[in-house]
């Protein structure tokens, strides 16, 4: 494979930022699920027991929020939804059956990726605010009990949506070959870009031509 032809999709700082979010997400999902339902309580063993799970979870959460905010600042401009995205979402059957040729031309991100991006933005915001409200012993005593009760419920709902979204996200990366390499090593092949993100491919190659 000719390395000169490769297209850079993520620079090193993008990749480090992404994997920082990913690692903290895994830690948070495991420690959060441990307290989510009794059948998952055994996961507290991974964190040194129940009290340590309870102590660590919110601190890791802060790290994830800060890292995610960085990621959102980097990528939000590419994730604004437009008319073409609506059409893409309508053709979801073509999407899941690998019939990409029938879909409208996709730019840097497809509509699925964009929707996931905004779902994550919403979930992270809810998780941060509700998480602070239920963070004992530091902040909870300052809040009215009804606020605390609503916050624990919202925290669980937002966490559920986020984990569901990330299951889809991880599977999409396994399904669409070349995606993991893009986030690990930063580059994609021209053929990959042309097939999955043709509008982005045109953009990148035309600017390259001008150089």
């Amino acid at each position: 494979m000719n390395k000169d032809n490769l297209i850079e999709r993520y620079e090193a700082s993008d990749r480090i930022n992404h994997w920082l979010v990913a690692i903290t997400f895994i830690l948070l999902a495991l420690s959060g699920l441990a307290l989510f339902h009794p059948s998952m309580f055994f996961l507290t063993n991974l964190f040194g027991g129940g009290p340590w799970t309870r102590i660590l979870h919110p601190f890791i959460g802060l790290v994830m929020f800060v890292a995610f905010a960085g990621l959102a600042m980097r990528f939000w401009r590419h994730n604004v939804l437009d008319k073409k995205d609506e059409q893409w979402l309508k053709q979801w059957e073509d999407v899941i059956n690998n019939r990409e040729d029938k879909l409208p031309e996709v730019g840097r991100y497809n509509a699925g990726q964009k929707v996931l991006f905004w779902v994550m933005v919403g979930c992270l915001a809810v998780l941060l605010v509700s998480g602070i409200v239920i963070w004992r012993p530091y902040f909870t005593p300052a809040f009215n009990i009804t606020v605390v009760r609503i916050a624990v419920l919202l925290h669980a709902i937002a966490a559920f949506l986020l984990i569901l979204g990330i299951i889809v996200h991880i599977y999409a990366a396994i399904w669409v070959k070349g995606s993991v390499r893009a986030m690990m090593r930063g580059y994609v092949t021209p053929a990959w870009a042309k097939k999955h993100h043709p509008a982005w491919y045109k953009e990148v190659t035309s600017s390259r031509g001008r150089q």
Partner: protein
Amino acid sequence: MALQSLDIERRSATTTQPPDQRQPLKVAKLIDISKCIGCKACQSACMEWNDLREAVGTNTGTYDNPRDLSENSWTVMKFFEVEPDGKLEWLIRKDGCMHCADPGCLKACPSPGAIVQYSNGIVDFHEENCIGCGYCVTGCPFNVPRISKKDGKAYKCTLCSDRVSVGLEPACIKTCPTGALVFGSKEDMIDHAEERIADLKERGYQKAGLYDPPGVGGTHVMYVLQHADRPELYGLPNDPKISPWVSVWKGATKPLALIVLGLAALGSFFHYVKVGPNEVEEDQKERT
């Protein structure tokens, strides 16, 4: 614990039935507010039996001392100066855990065995299993559990489960000089309360009654109130029940959510099996 460990009706964060073969008597503490003189002997007995010492607090201009329940004060006398029928009454209520038949604390607790409900009705915290999340505080409709500043664990009245398990009455009952506090089977306590209520009605308290709120399945600490139609005079909730927010949070939604997550992972896997990976053909050519 010993034999008591055989008699567990409910255990926090446990989805199977705990050992509950034997059927011990349901117990209850009855607090007759009309007989209470506010001497705080029950508070002292509680601290003595349970080896608790409250730090010296500050005077807030009332007889309430300490001002509120804490990790060191599992029962506190609360004084209310009210004028329900235009004449001044000094109502004194011994505050503490109500030992609900449907305990919100236990429902909310995520740690297996940190909260148990014995078959006799006592709701007890096992602090060695407590992780300090405070969900019990969130779940309690009576604002009873307190998180210790020293060890981060939740504490509250045990109804002297250690004494009751060996046939003794709780320490507060033992020490009460006026008979305002009595302890026995829940059935007997209801009978006794009815006698007291009839007596109070004869003395002009037409609305006297028993506080055994059905919203939490009844409680194993009950009050005889002179004004049972207005429990708020005593700082008691009118119709306590587990908050709907807590019920939704801890109800069927959680196992359902786990099933949905499992199905998402399983669905993804079978999508791969059926449709297969989305590969770029030219890439393959380039490699060969």
